[in-house]
């Protein structure tokens, strides 16, 4: 049976038009002008036990709003939603005891407390008994390498360290469902790897259902079998990563730094997208010319200082879905 059922979920924000000055603020108390912003426009999906879902989309697409409704923070305007048999915002306290939530942008820990004391306070909040607390904590400490961080006040942690602690904190009560909103945002490469590795294990070894929002395609490629793409408050695509690839053009990018800024690059089979001094950005279709072929050809014709291959950024993938996906709207 589905662990999460969402049907026609809609959320509109009222954006108050602020007026300037003290008098304006007073006038705003009496009567206000509002602008409506549809953050979620009737989204529908189902998620089963043990899935690891990537929820992707550009900034402002509605990812966080979805997570906030699913975790009982926001009440939607319309639609139905049932998670673990609860309507999140109606039975909030009983419901949130069974889930874990991490917001990449904002810590769940107490800013001024050493990490271990935050954990201990959470243990009280979630009524975790001593034995299971100790067991879970030990496990988290070894999996996330937290030993050296436990006595540090949260405010002194680096972003990557803080994220590892936040992950541990969200799991102390052993939830079967975990929401991660942008867990890799702003992290350096090693921290990203640590987070991904941990999430993967959590899902595989413990069967925890994970819903992870991101706008980093690498998160998705290394972690998720199923990807939901959201844009402008609508689910544009819901399926496997392979499906997503198929729908968008397979184009890849080759970025080349030449030794000589004056030379014009000659690269058969590739299209020049931009040029900035010695740096050239090329697009190519790997079905027509393989990356290896292309690189060999470029290197044989020019003195190359550096080159690397990239996937198009997620924003472009979304645009692609919009433009060519035959989105009924």
């Amino acid at each position, binding site marked *: 049976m589905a662990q999460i059922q969402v049907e026609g979920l809609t959320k509109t924000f009222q954006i108050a038009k602020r007026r300037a000055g003290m008098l304006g*603020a007073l006038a*705003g108390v009496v009567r206000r002008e509002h602008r409506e912003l549809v953050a979620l426009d009737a989204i529908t999906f189902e998620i089963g036990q043990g899935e690891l879902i990537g929820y992707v989309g550009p900034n402002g697409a509605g990812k966080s709003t979805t997570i*906030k409704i699913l975790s009982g*923070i926001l009440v939607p305007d319309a639609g139905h939603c049932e998670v673990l048999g609860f309507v999140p915002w109606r039975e*909030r306290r009983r419901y*949130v005891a069974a889930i874990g*939530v991490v917001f990449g942008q904002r810590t769940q820990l*107490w800013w*001024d407390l050493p990490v271990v004391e935050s954990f201990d306070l959470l243990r*009280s909040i979630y009524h975790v008994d001593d034995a299971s607390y100790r067991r879970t904590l030990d496990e988290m400490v070894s999996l996330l390498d937290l030993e050296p961080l436990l006595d540090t006040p949260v405010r002194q942690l680096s972003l990557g360290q803080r994220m590892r602690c936040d992950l541990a904190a969200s799991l102390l009560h052993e939830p079967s469902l975990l929401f991660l909103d942008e867990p890799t945002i702003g992290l350096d490469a090693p921290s990203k790897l640590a987070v991904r590795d941990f999430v993967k294990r959590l899902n595989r070894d413990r069967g925890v259902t994970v819903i992870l929002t991101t706008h980093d395609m690498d998160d998705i490629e290394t972690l998720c079998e199923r990807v939901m793409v959201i844009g402008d408050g609508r689910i544009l695509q819901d399926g496997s990563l392979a499906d997503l690839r198929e729908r968008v053009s397979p184009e890849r990018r080759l970025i080349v730094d030449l030794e000589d800024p004056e030379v014009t690059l000659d690269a058969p089979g590739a299209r020049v997208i931009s040029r900035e001094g010695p740096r050239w950005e090329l697009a190519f279709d790997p079905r027509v010319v393989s990356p290896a072929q292309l690189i060999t050809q470029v290197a044989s014709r020019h003195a190359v200082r550096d080159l690397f291959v990239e996937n198009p950024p997620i924003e472009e993938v979304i645009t692609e879905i919009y433009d060519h996906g035959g989105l009924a709207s």
Partner: protein
Amino acid sequence: MRGSTLYRRMVAVSIRAQMQYRASFLLLSLGQAGVTVIEFFGIWALFDRFGRLPDWTLAEVAVFYGVVNVAFSFSDAVSRGFDLFGQDVRQGDFDRVLVRPRSSLLQVAGSRFAIHRIGRLIQGAVVLAVGLSQVESQMGPVEGLLLVFAIAGGAALFLGLVVLQATLAFWSTETLELMNTMTYGGVQTAQYPIAIYREAFRRFFTFVVPLACVAYFPVVAVLGRPDPLGSPFWFQCVAPLAGFAFLFASFGVWQIGVRHYTSTGS
């Protein structure tokens, strides 16, 4: 862990966190002490004036003042989290409260604790004690109990006001400071025997924001004197219940507010 135990732990955490910024903690305490001293002079000046109120002796006015201020200081110490609640809402920090399986009111109350506000408690208690020692009526166990009941009802009422005020932040975070000023103004007004005010005022403080029910009526009973407003003795004894009813009602309004919480876009 029960709610009260959790609250105590959260308060301990908040106090320890404040201690980390030792300099600012010391400054705050010093500042509060300074304010308290200045307020003493204010009271003295006011009493000098109101002491000559017809019908009321200076000692009696001191008892009203003491009860209201002791009650207010209790709610003030625990309500720091609500005072700054507008900020939590604006910054979306209330998200964190909602994803935890505990009462949101309890968590907000426990999030901050203002130890330095204890100064007001001492000030109110001193005025109350001095007033009681100077009034003519005898203090027995019944009067003592009634005083405690009045102070508890008063603390509940003030807490209810604070909760209502914080609830406004769910709709508009700009009005919070304005409301704050109004609450303090209300306290100032209600710490004198309400019989000296006009009818409309008295009704407001009896039926809308029942400050009179937690201060004026029970204190009249404690003083053992007839009420110029003519309320019966039994009513004076049960009146402080209105404070608890008010607090309870404010909890209901809070729950409605929570459903209107919109968090923040990032």
